[in-house]
């Protein structure tokens, strides 16, 4: 195919809506002022002119936007005043996503989003509206290699041939109700209701308590509670909508994901582009035995919502992950719980790092407002407990070409790394470390934000040099 094509005319609507959204904030204050002054006629006239301009511009944009597939490249020409041409080589495409929002679905269209490895979002290409057929055709054309056939073309055969895993509604409900925001809320509410009273010093109470204030506080707590419950429900709803029918299919050289209730999204991840596999257990999900599986791929898009990582699966039982990986991504193996732990002498470092800030705060409070000493002391205690668990969670497992690093900041994160995906490897030790035979290991992989560092702090110096030896290409 070499002739240039335009997007579907509906994309004019998208561009118009987008530009209107952008200028509305500029116009609004002027409009409000104008209404106040009784210049309603001029105002509506101005608005109509602006609307016409925007629509005209959108039509021009649409006219100028052409794309074509040429051998191994996608060529896009666009721009009204400044004309731009862009060529994206097929071999550099990290992933191709098809997504449909409600307008798309009414017209039977799809948005095609093409991600490359650059760190600049603008480098990526997005075709706002093409017909479903065209979208699938592009998807097949631009895929890294042409082996696999896309879904749905011969649905029945694929279901037999290619391993697949679909999310259950139960899993989604659990995912929604244990999402990060909810954990925060639970903590706040629990603290607020049961403990707050005992922390407020008597002197404060004596000064401030009167019947009215008491009533007001109770009312406030009730309102806050209601608000939190609402938020929680909303969180569950959002999760359900986002990950509805989440299905992952393994083809020979790529993973294919579909999801979404209102906005259907499809995503293709070429296996070659996967830099690492991660398993995240948030502090709420870990006791329940649930975890999230995600992959690191190098793509330019820095998503607005940190939650929308390149998920392989929104939530599943930790026990199940092994068989899931075996089925879907057998290149990576999650070891059973035999991680090499840190040596005991590393513990003080972890406790110190976690506890030092709240401890200093405690000292400050002790001198300035001794009545409130309870709060920073509790914080110090919690931080020390966290430090201890950080120490307990940290470990590594080496098996052939795969290194598995387990670490915890607050949530436990297990990362499966391949030798040839690591960009560099460093062993660090300061003078106390050297005296104690300890060393920190720092390795980096390519990720959404240019690079992600995996750091194991204070491991046994000998193991650290063994890891360095393992990484070396010379030995």
């Amino acid at each position, binding site marked *: 195919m070499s002739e240039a094509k335009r997007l579907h005319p509906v994309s004019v609507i998208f561009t118009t809506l987008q530009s209107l959204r952008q200028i509305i904030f500029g116009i609004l204050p002027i409009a409000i002022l104008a209404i106040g002054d009784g210049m309603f006629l001029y105002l509506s006239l101005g608005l109509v002119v602006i609307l016409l301009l925007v629509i005209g511009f959108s039509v021009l944009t649409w006219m100028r936007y052409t794309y074509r597939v040429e051998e191994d490249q996608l060529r896009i020409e666009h721009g009204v005043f400044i004309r731009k041409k862009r060529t994206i080589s097929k071999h550099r495409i990290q992933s191709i996503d098809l997504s449909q929002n409600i307008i798309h679905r009414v017209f039977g269209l799809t948005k095609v989003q093409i991600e490359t490895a650059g760190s600049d979002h603008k480098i990526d290409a997005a075709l706002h509206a093409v017909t479903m057929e065209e979208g699938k055709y592009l998807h097949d054309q631009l895929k890294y290699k042409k082996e696999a056939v896309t879904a749905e073309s011969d649905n029945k055969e694929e279901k037999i041939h290619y391993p697949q895993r679909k999310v259950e509604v139960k899993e989604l409900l659990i995912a929604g109700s244990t999402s990060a925001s909810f954990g925060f809320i639970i903590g706040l509410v629990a603290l607020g209701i049961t403990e707050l009273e005992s922390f407020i010093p008597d002197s404060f109470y004596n000064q401030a308590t009167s019947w009215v204030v008491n009533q007001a506080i109770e009312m406030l707590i009730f309102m806050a509670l209601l608000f939190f419950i609402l938020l929680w429900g909303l969180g569950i709803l959002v999760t359900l909508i986002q990950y509805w029918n989440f299905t992952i299919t393994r083809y020979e050289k790529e993973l294919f994901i579909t999801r979404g209730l209102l906005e259907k999204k499809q995503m293709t991840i070429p296996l070659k582009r996967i830099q690492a596999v991660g398993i995240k257990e948030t502090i709420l999900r870990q006791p329940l035995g649930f975890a999230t599986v995600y992959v690191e791929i*190098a793509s330019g898009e820095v998503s607005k919502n940190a939650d929308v990582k390149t998920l392989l699966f929104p939530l599943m039982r930790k026990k199940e992950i092994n068989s899931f990986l075996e089925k879907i991504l057998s290149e990576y193996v999650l070891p059973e719980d035999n991680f090499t732990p840190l040596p005991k002498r590393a513990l003080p470092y972890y406790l110190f790092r976690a506890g030092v800030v709240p401890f200093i705060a405690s000292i400050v409070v002790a001198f300035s407002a001794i009545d409130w000493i309870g709060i920073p002391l509790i914080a110090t205690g919690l931080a020390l407990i966290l430090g201890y668990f950080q120490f307990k969670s940290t470990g590594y497992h080496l098996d052939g070409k795969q290194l598995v690093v387990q670490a915890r900041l607050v949530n436990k994160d297990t990362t499966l790394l391949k030798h040839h995906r690591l960009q560099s490897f*460093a*062993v660090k030790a*300061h003078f106390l470390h050297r005296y104690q035979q300890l060393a920190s290991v720092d390795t980096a992989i*390519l*990720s959404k934000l*240019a690079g992600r560092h995996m750091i194991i702090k204070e491991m046994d110096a000998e193991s650290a040099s063994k890891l360095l030896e393992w*990484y070396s*290409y010379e030995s």
Partner: protein
Amino acid sequence: MRKAPSERIATDAIKAWQVLAIIFTVIPLLAAIALYVLAYFFEFSYWFAIGVTAFTILEGVISILIIPKLRWRRWRYQIYDQEIYIQHGILIVTRTIVPMIRVQHVDTQQGPILKKYKLASLTISTAATTHEIPALLEEEASALRDQISELARVEQDDV
């Protein structure tokens, strides 16, 4: 434990770092002089000025006389066919391996101070990290740059 890398960086690096340190010492020195002048005209205690002077002297001695030598002594590197091995750091000793197939590009750089001593720095970038060898002889730096880019020119199947 793997042996430290074999090559040292240029000896003149010490001089270059010292020049840089002297330039940075001028700032607290000027502050100290200003304090003396102000104390004279506005008649407040000279102790502030004396404190800053003491600090300047201490900082100068450490950053000019001690740190550059220690830093030079620790800095080592070695270029293998398949990897670059670097060791540096005074308090925190870091040993880094950068595989050749991960190298994206190599730069040499030269500021005015390095130029005076006919030195240049070499920066090695992978897709996720950058690594610098701070002071090499000019010819050595450009030879290394070419050597690394030659060695790094292996078929890369992906990023």
